[in-house]
């Protein structure tokens, strides 16, 4: 039976935010930056499985709640991308971590740590994430009898907070995400699924859980991610 990961907290903007932690006493430690919005929910079980696998390899891992997400008491509509970047930086510094693994849109929240070593899984631009959320809103508006468009919703979201697929996204967060590209980091390893045709430094077999209708798991992929991170970290 695997030990259960424990919640610890980190301080950001005068508040305590939660962080799931496994194997904190290990000498090798890594911060896991989760995907954003719905993708985080769909991949959380997979990430917790990664934490178990890392612990079995004697690697400690920390999975913070970004402000406004998961158990955070902060209202998402007040949060900006800069807050997420500063929160990730604060969590890394408070736990003395210099290696960061980010998943999907999580890579957009690592800009506060340019000199850290980055392991990056299937990175995505902010505009791509928003486009799917805007399309979902166009479809749900249509079902409610309203006719909207991606362009119209974009202008609305740039001026006022807008509910997108269950998330109230503030206009600063929307604008920052919409222009946030995948950062080019000095020390990085980009890993993608073997079904992906984009440039990368390594591929693993697995499922694009972020595209699924419901949260799911892929234990073999979680183990493969932990193994890749293990080799990347070295001894």
């Amino acid at each position, binding site marked *: 039976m695997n030990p259960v990961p424990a919640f610890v907290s980190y301080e950001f903007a005068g508040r305590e935010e939660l962080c799931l932690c496994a194997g904190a006493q290990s000498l090798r430690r890594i911060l896991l930056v989760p995907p954003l919005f*719905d993708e985080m929910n769909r991949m959380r079980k997979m990430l917790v499985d990664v934490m178990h696998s890392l612990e079995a390899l004697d690697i400690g891992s920390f999975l913070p709640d970004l402000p406004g997400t998961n158990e955070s008491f902060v209202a998402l509509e007040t949060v900006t991308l800069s807050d997420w970047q500063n929160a990730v930086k604060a969590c890394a510094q408070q736990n003395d971590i210099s290696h960061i693994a980010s998943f999907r849109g999580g890579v957009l929240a690592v800009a506060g740590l340019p000199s850290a070593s980055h392991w990056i899984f299937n990175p995505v631009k902010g505009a*791509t994430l928003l*486009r*799917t*959320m805007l*399309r*979902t809103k*166009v*479809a*749900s508006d249509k*079902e409610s009898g309203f006719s909207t*468009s*991606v*362009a119209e919703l974009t202008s609305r979201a740039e001026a006022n907070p807008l509910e997108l*697929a269950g998330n109230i996204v503030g206009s600063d967060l929307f604008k920052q995400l919409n222009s946030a590209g995948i950062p080019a980091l000095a020390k990085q390893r*980009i890993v993608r699924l073997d*079904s992906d*045709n*984009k*440039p*990368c*430094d390594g*591929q693993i077999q697995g*499922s*694009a859980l972020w*595209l*699924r*209708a419901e949260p*799911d798991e892929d234990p073999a992929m979680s183990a493969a991610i932990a193994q890749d991170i293990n080799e990347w970290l070295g001894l």
Partner: protein
Amino acid sequence: MQNEVELTPEAAVRAVMRDILGLSEEQVAEFTAETELFGALPELDSMAVAGLLTELEDRLDIMIEDDEVDGELFETFGNLVAFAETKVTE
């Protein structure tokens, strides 16, 4: 760094369907032009369709406008592949 590999529109549609529905390569290889999609596959709800369109844009480097998307597009696998083929030649 491994370079980007060019995908045919049909291969891209097949790969996205496989990812969204969580199918094996063998299962998705059995899709034909007549395979029914929207309505026949419960996983393909409006959110999944939104993700599918964005993934196709990303993998084929195309832009899909709101007014190009209608119910007919998702009726069959063949319709979706034909649409993707038209978009890449635009």
